[in-house]
């Protein structure tokens, strides 16, 4: 997986960060020297930088937007390290088109290296509860990022109240979105407790541990 950049985008609250952090751990477990850049300069809550310590302890390098905690949206120039040869990089972008804007300025650099741009969708979020609404967000994100999406991630869940029905319903809807857009489905994500309980293509299954917790979940 070296020489590969994965850019994680999606609607606000789609689960981009949870997926990006889990992807970082998965790639690190597979023996890659992973670098994750937290490019969310829109929202200061529930950001991958909150899990920096855990990631660093697993050998993952975390690049954080400087000044983020004081509400100053500034991108760390270290992000340029991701565009060098031999990197296994992940970009956790901010939500919606406004979050993807931060990608736009790097689009020429990104186009020079092998990359994939994944769009995460949770069909239980009211603003993306149909393939049509999800596509509208996807297209705005592509426009802002000045890059095209290469894969879709079904992250349909309902927090602790998720059932297998939510995940399979999301899987059907993301197939519709894939048909409408021609963008292939890359993953179906779900909490580890659902492992072995889902009728989904094995290579698309992406079990996750939840890292982005609320204060009473620690």
């Amino acid at each position, binding site marked *: 997986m070296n020489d590969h950049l994965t850019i994680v985008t999606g609607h*606000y609250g789609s689960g981009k960060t949870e997926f990006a952090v889990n992807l970082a751990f998965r790639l690190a477990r597979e023996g890659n020297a992973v670098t994750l850049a937290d490019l969310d300069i829109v929202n200061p809550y529930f950001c991958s930088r909150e899990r920096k310590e855990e990631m660093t302890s697993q050998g993952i390098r975390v690049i954080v937007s400087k000044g983020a905690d004081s509400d100053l949206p500034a991108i760390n120039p270290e992000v340029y390290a991701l565009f060098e040869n031999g990197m296994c990089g992940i970009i956790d972008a901010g939500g919606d088109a406004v979050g993807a804007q931060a990608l736009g300025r790097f689009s020429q650099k990104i186009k020079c290296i092998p990359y994939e741009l994944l769009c995460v969708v949770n069909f239980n979020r009211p603003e993306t509860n149909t393939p049509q609404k999800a596509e509208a967000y996807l297209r705005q994100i592509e426009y802002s990022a000045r890059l095209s999406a290469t894969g879709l991630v079904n992250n349909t869940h309902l927090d602790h109240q998720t059932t297998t029905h939510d995940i399979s319903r999301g899987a059907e809807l993301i197939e519709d979105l894939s048909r409408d857009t021609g963008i292939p489905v890359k993953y179906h994500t779900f909490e580890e407790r659902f492992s072995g309980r889902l009728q989904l293509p094995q290579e698309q299954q992406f079990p996750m541990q939840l890292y982005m917790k609320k204060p009473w979940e*620690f």
Partner: protein
Amino acid sequence: MAKELWKGNEAVAEAAIRAGCRYFFGYPITPQNEIPEYFARHMPEHDGVFLQAESEVAAINMAYGAAGSGARVMTSSSSPGISLKQEGISYIAGAELPVVIVNMMRGGPGLGSIAPGQSDYFQATRGGGNGDYRTVVLAPATIQEMTDLTQEAFDIADLYRIPVLVLADGMIGQMMEAVEWKKPKARKLPAKGWATDGTKGKREHNIINSLFIDPKDCTQHNQNLQKKHDLITQNEIRFEEYLTDDAEVLFVAYGTTARICQSAAIKLREAGVKAGVFRPISLWPYPEKELYLCANRGCVKTVVCAEMSMGQMIDDVKIALNGSKPVRFIGSGGGTFPTSAELMAAAHTALEGV
């Protein structure tokens, strides 16, 4: 209806729209920006008005105007912005207008931090503005509860002609939880005969004002307000008890902190310590008698008040308990929260102290 996954800030805005709110005036501040953003996106679909004012002061006075004309109206902000609105809130209370205000609290004082806080309790329950006025203060702990309470807040505001404050924090505003949309229990609401919505040549002009030049008139006005406050205290108290039946140590906490306390109570019980949580939902009127009863009817030995502040609600806890139980405080201000482990340690210390 199927459940959906809502972010707190978006949910509070949607709840307002569902309650018939068609006017929103606000000014951006983290961590509540998704509220104005949601209204900006969705008010036009309902022929409603979203307006980003030039300041918080302007926004609260626009809310005064809209409420005066009989409309359902909301404004929202976070701590420093709510401070700016205080003059307007006092005028709204004085003019007896129904306005719903949302405060997604952050760390203070001053600009403080953008992380979640609960240090506006004094301001919310004692009034940051001048005069003998009250605002109903509702403090949800889940997004479901926030959507229910926000819809009801409009009914309470209309019923009593009083500003209602939905008091949450950045965590509740930013986090996501499952929501099932429900309508609040129907209340019989009086017609707004006082509104300045045009005489149509059929009645005298209505005047909306908080000015009473003759002090005797102003005294009478204050007495009328007090009657209303007493009625609200009689009718609108809300609270929740969690594992309190056999509790020996009782946490008192609201909002986000109450949920950390609930998690600590479960862990304490696993370790053999009987812990429970009393959660005030209405912070004004405060469930004074209810807290006293909860702490004194069974086996409670000691009370621990927990807040994301340096200790504000503890005053009301002490008033409610009236010296009947020892009270300790644990909390942290500025944008951090007590952890479940810290709460457990505080419970142990409190029990050792009795």
